[in-house]
């Protein structure tokens, strides 16, 4: 007789039949692509995936907890073993200029190369893949699942996709062949070479530009700003569609001057058509005693961004606010009306404003 769980798997949850819990640590490993062995030092390696450049002795885990030195070889943990697999509207990532209201198969393996005190996925970002319960989902099966679930894209998200770089790369390669978009939400903390290799496969990237000064990155994320800015510039050069998210945390990164500087930098380096999402902070993780961002602060930030010349500036986590809509930069009418993750009205025709014909930059077709 079938147990409740098996019945559910068979009758109701068919797509996830593909996903089984991993039971051996060993099967999580795949040799990492970017690292080198240190000369004259037995079994020591240097990871070259992200700017941290972790030096790892035999048996050591990287700062991200997702890479491990085993007998002088660096292995990526969590390969083909995501701990989170969900289908979300693409607006949840958030992508506002990529096939609106389409479903995105979202996957993540555990770990992160930053230590943000406001992380909303801390349950999986602050642990190693060896500590989470994972699905067995090799790249081919991810793509099959995306097709089966009618997802237009595969999103590498929730945790930092750089941690499961090899898994993302192999999946993206197959997905691209099958006509499925590859999108990722990243902190942008990655080195040039791996990023360039990834850029040939990835269609859209939402980069968390968490603040615009080193002090903020150092204090709240244990990181630096420059590598993130470099990532944005490389992505632009490689022609990857970029959207930027800036979580506005009251008292930490909400200075108007800093926001202005950030917007000017975006316009000058990435162009005026890069969508910028100012997101409302709510008490989270280690910053759970902070007040939510006042909506007026977000509105001021949006005003600054528009005054600087950015065309598509959004407010996030404020459902029903007009700042969630996409406005045509020529006729100023709402082309895409939204509330939360939901599209309420679509006035886009072949990537152009239905009212005046102005092109709205983005990826509107798979």
């Amino acid at each position: 007789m079938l147990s409740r769980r098996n019945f559910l798997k068979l009758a109701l949850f068919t797509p996830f039949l593909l996903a089984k819990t991993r039971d051996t640590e060993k099967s999580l490993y795949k040799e990492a692509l970017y690292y080198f062995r240190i000369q004259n030092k037995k079994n020591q390696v240097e990871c070259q995936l992200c700017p941290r450049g972790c030096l790892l002795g035999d048996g050591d885990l990287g700062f991200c907890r997702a890479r491990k030195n085993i007998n002088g070889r660096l292995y990526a943990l969590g390969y083909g073993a995501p701990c989170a697999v969900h289908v979300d509207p693409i607006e949840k990532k958030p992508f506002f200029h990529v096939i609106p209201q389409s479903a995105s198969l979202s996957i993540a393996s555990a770990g992160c190369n930053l230590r943000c005190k406001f992380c909303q996925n801390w349950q999986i970002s602050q642990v190693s893949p060896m500590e989470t319960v994972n699905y067995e989902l090799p790249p081919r099966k991810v793509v099959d699942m995306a097709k089966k679930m009618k997802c237009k894209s595969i999103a590498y998200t929730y945790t930092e996709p750089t941690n499961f770089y090899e898994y993302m790369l192999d999946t993206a390669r197959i997905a691209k062949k099958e006509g499925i978009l590859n999108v990722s939400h990243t902190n942008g903390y990655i080195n040039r070479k791996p990023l360039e290799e990834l850029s040939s496969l990835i269609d859209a990237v939402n980069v968390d530009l968490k603040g615009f000064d080193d002090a903020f990155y150092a204090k709240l994320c244990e990181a630096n700003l420059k590598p993130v800015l470099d990532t944005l510039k490389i992505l632009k050069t490689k022609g990857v569609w970029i959207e930027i998210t800036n979580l506005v945390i009251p008292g930490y990164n909400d200075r108007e001057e800093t926001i202005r500087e950030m917007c000017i930098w975006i316009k000058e380096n990435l162009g005026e058509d890069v969508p910028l999402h100012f997101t409302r902070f709510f008490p989270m993780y280690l910053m759970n005693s902070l007040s939510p961002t006042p909506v007026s602060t977000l509105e001021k930030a949006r005003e600054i961004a528009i005054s600087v010349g950015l065309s598509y500036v959004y407010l996030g986590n404020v459902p029903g606010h007009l700042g969630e809509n996409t406005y045509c930069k020529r006729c100023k009418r709402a082309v895409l009306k939204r509330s939360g993750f939901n599209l309420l009205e679509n006035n886009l025709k072949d990537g152009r404003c239905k009212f005046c014909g102005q092109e709205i930059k983005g990826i509107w077709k798979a």
Partner: protein
Amino acid sequence: MNIIQMGTITVISTFPSSFLHGFLFNLAFSLARLSQDEERNTVGQVYFYEMLGTAVGGASLTYFFIPNFDVYWIANLVGFVSNTSILLTYASRKKSSLLLCAFFSGLFLFLLVSGANKKLVQFSLKRIWGEKEIIFSENSMYQNLTVIKNDSEYTVYTDGLPYTTVPNPDTFYIEEVAHLPLLFHPMPKQVLLLSVPPEVAKEVIKYPSIERIDYVEMDPRLLQIVEAVSKKGEEERKVKIYFEDGRHFVKKAKHKYDVIILGIKSPNTLQTNRFFTFEFFEDVKNILNEGGLYFFSLPGSNYYTQELRMLNTSVFIAAKETFNFVYVLPGSPNFFILTDSRVDMSADILYEKLSNHGVSANLISKAHLDYKLDNRKREWFLMQLEEKTERKNTDFTPFAFFFSIAYENLKISPVTLSFFRNIYNLKIEHLFLLVLFTLLLLVLVGAKKGRSVTLTFSVFTTGLTMTMTEVIFLFAYQTIYGYVLYALGILLSAFMTGCAGGSIAGARIEKRFRSFEGLVVFEIAATIFLLVILFNATIFKEMDPQSIKLHTLFLALLFISGFFIGAEFTLGVSSYLDVNRVDQRKGIGVIFASDLIGGFFGALAGSFIIFPILGLKETLVIIFVLKLSSLSLFLLIPKK
């Protein structure tokens, strides 16, 4: 703040006074001995006055000082009274020490009358809240309430955590909590709101079909404060507000409701756990109309850690045993819908209802409903639940409370993870083995050292078991009444008065009979007392919470628990001196330490590990077994 930080702060803040307390006990004994003819009774007397002082101090602090004065003023008063009393008592002694006392006495008096305490309060608030603009901060009967102004918004904090923000609250939470349950019901007319933020009521009012909204909030100050910083709409006056505990309201409600919505987000205290238990679900079921539903939220995530899994599972099991249908809309948070009638989970139908009601919302749309009601997500959630467990969340097996704390700790103190995960699997058999092992060890040691082992262990276990019962009574009180902080003064006073009374009784018995026999009698009585409690553990549930009988019962039980500690301490000291013929101060030191160490472990293990994991019944069993083990030592270890 994590458990390690909490423990450190507790030690730092209580150690100096506790250290002095213990130090003064021995000092007071030495001083009292100088003016007493009979030395042994002196111990009982000093203990009596110590406990009496603690009882009076606890009660007056809770009911008089804290409601009327701030902590700095009270601390200054204590400093002034202590120093002045030394001056008055030892006016003829060493002058340099007295000058120091006089200086401090004057300093505290100056601080008392100069109003410096107010500046200290402001300074302390500044330290806690930093540069934030504090509009208001006070301690209500239930919690600390603070309002912070941030640009044009006000955030109301309860015990340091944001409760709601006006005029722009968390729209996701407010709209989902208000609209989803109303849309699931065919035609909601009677609605009960339990401890929801006022913004939820504002959304509920929008439904024209609703005839009655009863809004229950335990803390009147909370609602007054939120109203003070909000603009009150005319339509809100339609809502009937009750300032009382939601649990009591449901228990004695005369009306029946179509929809009951709970605004408490997590069972992370025993007070809040009461709204997620099997017993409460049964009460809720009794006041739901046919087709009615109970809606509440629990923490959720994209990924389920063991703690989150167990937290949701324990509540799910309790819900499943009470209602025919339990639907869960997973997310962060998860929304639970408990009902005896099948609910239509079609986004189309729900959206049509929203339109038919003529209600507009910012977030709730057809697409949003599609997303929230996604069948795959709901089934995925069911797969996250723990199958191999029978841990049902009840009032007296508060698993959800324990796992909420464990989940919070995972966030702020991952280093404690392995500790928590190890104690998840604690079973009563483990504790039986521990008691048995200890007993065997003591029998072996006792064979060499004789009855001093028995005496020390009996005082230790009395301290341990009676403190555990004290903790359990306090937990039971909180579970039944919904608060304990406000009553803590009177409850602890009952316990301390019991200690004082016990020490007098011990001293009297010691005068008339032999201390050792007296101690054995109290050991037997304590074991019987624990057995009686064990077999009547459900009495708290059966009695009317509002009745004076139940209040009296709590006070009586706490008094008796303390009584055993006081009596056994006094008799323990005498017996120890009889058996060992050692210096009296050493004897007192050994027995006092046994008593306190027992109390320390009782409070720690009882509150933190045993009760939340094993629940009331099994905890009482282990307490009884512990006391029985110390009683059995009197038989197992012969007199030397």
